[in-house]
């Protein structure tokens, strides 16, 4: 199972495909601001990506994959200790 949901933490492993979209959405709704662990994630399907863009989460561990880390992470609605946030999203902070 590429994403394992353990209470308030979702751990992404390997290539996460579209099948995870529904469980992920359910988890995001149940755990607003939940922690996501992307360290082992190798690919994030666009459906999952957009869910993570519009649901606030806390980043437990950044992805090791360079594409995910450099290209996608900055668009996710995650709060991290270093706090990157897309400034073009004025509504995101409300």
């Amino acid at each position, binding site marked *: 199972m590429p994403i394992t949901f353990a209470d308030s933490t979702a751990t992404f492993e390997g290539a996460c495909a579209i099948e995870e*979209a529904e469980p992920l959405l359910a988890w995001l709704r149940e755990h607003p601001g939940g922690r996501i662990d992307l360290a082992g994630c190798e690919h994030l399907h*666009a*459906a999952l*990506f957009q869910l993570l863009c*519009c649901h606030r989460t806390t980043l437990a561990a950044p992805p090791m994959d360079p594409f995910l880390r450099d290209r*996608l992470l900055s668009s996710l609605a995650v709060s991290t200790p270093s706090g990157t946030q897309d*400034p073009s999203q004025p509504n995101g902070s*409300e």
Partner: protein
Amino acid sequence: MNPLLSMFIAEARDLLETIGQGILALEEKPGDSQVIQGIFRALHTLKGSSGIFEPELTHLKHMFHAGEDLLDLVRNHKLAFSSEMADRLLALVDLAAHYLNEMDAERFDAAVSQQPCAEVALSLRAILNPGAPLVEVKAEVKSAPPPAVPEWVTALPAEFLSQARSQGGAGFLVHYRPDADCFFYGTDPILVLRQLPGLHLLHFDLSGLSPPPGDDCDPFRCLLQAVAFSLATEEELRHHLSSEGDQVEIFPLPMTGGEKKASPEHGRRVRRLLLDLREFLVLATPEDRRSRIASALHILERPALAPHGNPTWGQSLKVAGEAAERGANIQLLIALLDESIGLLAEAAPPPPSPPPSAVATPPPATRGAQPAPAAADEGGAKVIKVDQARIDRMLDLVGELVVAKNIVPFLAEKADKEHGNHRMAQEIMEFFGHIHRLTSEMQSAMMQVRMLPVMHVFQRFPRLVRDISRKLDKQVELVITGGETEADKNVVEGLADPLIHLVRNSLDHGLEKPEDRIRAGKSPGGTLHLSACQENDRVIIEIRDDGRGIDGAVIRRKAFEKGVIDEKQRDDMDDQAAIQLIFAAGFSTVDAVSDLSGRGVGMDAVKNAVEGMGGRVMLSSSVGHGTCIRMELPMSMAVSRVMLIQVQDALYGIPLNQVVETVRLPRSSIRSIKHSQVVTLREKIIPLTPLAQLLGLPDPDPGSQGKEDVAVLVVKPGHSEVGLLVDDFNKGMDVILKPLEGFLAGVRGCAGGALLGDGRVLLVLNLQELL
């Protein structure tokens, strides 16, 4: 036909009209930025909407695209508007209009459209790149992207562009808009982007993602958009993205421009946020004021919130913020918020205003014309397009209502006389008054619906005059006045052909070449005046030129040679009567073009068309000074005013516009000349005809002989007056004239039938046919 396509055709026709008018307006007044903007927008819309019908309309789309690119440069002052450009754009308009007609007739063939469209597109592109030889341009049309920077590039954040540019400039921007259903086709846009060759930068546009969605969030709809910057070659990119089709646009990285522009969506969101913040501050209580100010400032410091058009925002914010924090006075901050909310409201895209209708009108005309823009400014004209058949159906119903209403007085009379209830009769009549007022208003409202300004027809003339006068090497100024005069749609549309004919004739034969005009002591440029005005319930259209005029003597001679008139007529006729002969059928002047101006060609067709609408044509001309053709038309064809007359106990209607006068004369004043009866009225001899005889009714002698007086209805159906002997005159009334149908359709001498209030059918006579 596909309803979408028919909508496209209707819309495209309007847009082409806008473009055509705009181009002519630009020739008058080059550099009118509003007009340029209008043409650009129209071309842009055409390009977009023809794209919906790909692949059939691909070639048209390319052509519109070329036009759009050209106008884009004009609008950005990179290219001056030239008459060459005007010619080529008009060629585009013509070609597109032609294909629209083909589509309408379901004859359109995409393959046939390729060559002509490509040629027009090429001619437009040739203006764009004047240096480039046509062949090369041709190749470019196919492979190279248009030079205009697409909107999605200009919407990119500045830092994205500057980072991309730091790579030396070689590279392509890829705009990827995956289909919302792409997940179902197994496409993973992130994977596509991940594997994009030469990927250097990636920017996601998440504006399609709603803020934390509610329960209705569908995780299987793709709402992402992305722009990638790649260092790969265009070919590699196209190869990789070939399966994504039109979801992808590739554009070379522009080295200049492309500063981030606020998108309307972004502007709206910021504005909403600022409004929220303002409320948040206004509602602050003394206890939480300080903390509220701090959080508001924290949010406001985001660079994305800085309004465009206010470069000092950061500075002002700092000052206001400090003031607020120091003295806990939030007024300054609120004022600042108000200001930037106002700015954002202004920056919101204005509603697309319809093209100013007066643009095609040359300047002198505007004093007469009352252009529409004022109305259009009030949030766009609210126009519904309705099928004419529906309106006609309503008009029919109103007509029936009017007839039905007229039965009420009969009822009142019945109540009074047969039932002896005088009071009841009075009440019915009172009630009738109400219905009468309402139905009359309803009828005139329905007429209004069918009214069109004659500008509708006039607006094509600036183009026509321009084209023909260029072809003939003549200088002609077209002056249009009274374009706002309204008339029934059928009248206005029926005017188009006669008017085109008359205008052509004036240009071709009436107005002289500049050198001839100078020789005749006139200014080199001729003037063609097209005017409309309303006189009572008639619309008067005049076409006046200051050309060479028509010589009555020549017409007389020609008409005699053609056998249109006999020798006696030739000698008796005065000049004004003679020139009317050009309206006579058979007065063809093919062999008299040089001195007769060839005006006879088709003039009888003009006359027939106008008279068919219940109008009249008159012509006056003076040699050397010009010609004026005046058309009088009924404002509405739906209601005709007729005069009722009685012949042998039956009522007939005579169109009121043909009635000159009604007189009662002593029988003794009728004289006989040869076999015909005549009467002298005000020193004019008027031939008399009994109407009963014309209608083929049995001889009425026994009854009418006894009367001392005769009733004479003097009519003028053509050029001469005729007296009709009738039994009695009745009132004039408005009727809704219906053409006779079925078996009766061929009845001669009858213009149509109408229903009288008591249910009787009234025959309205066509005097031209009878006499």
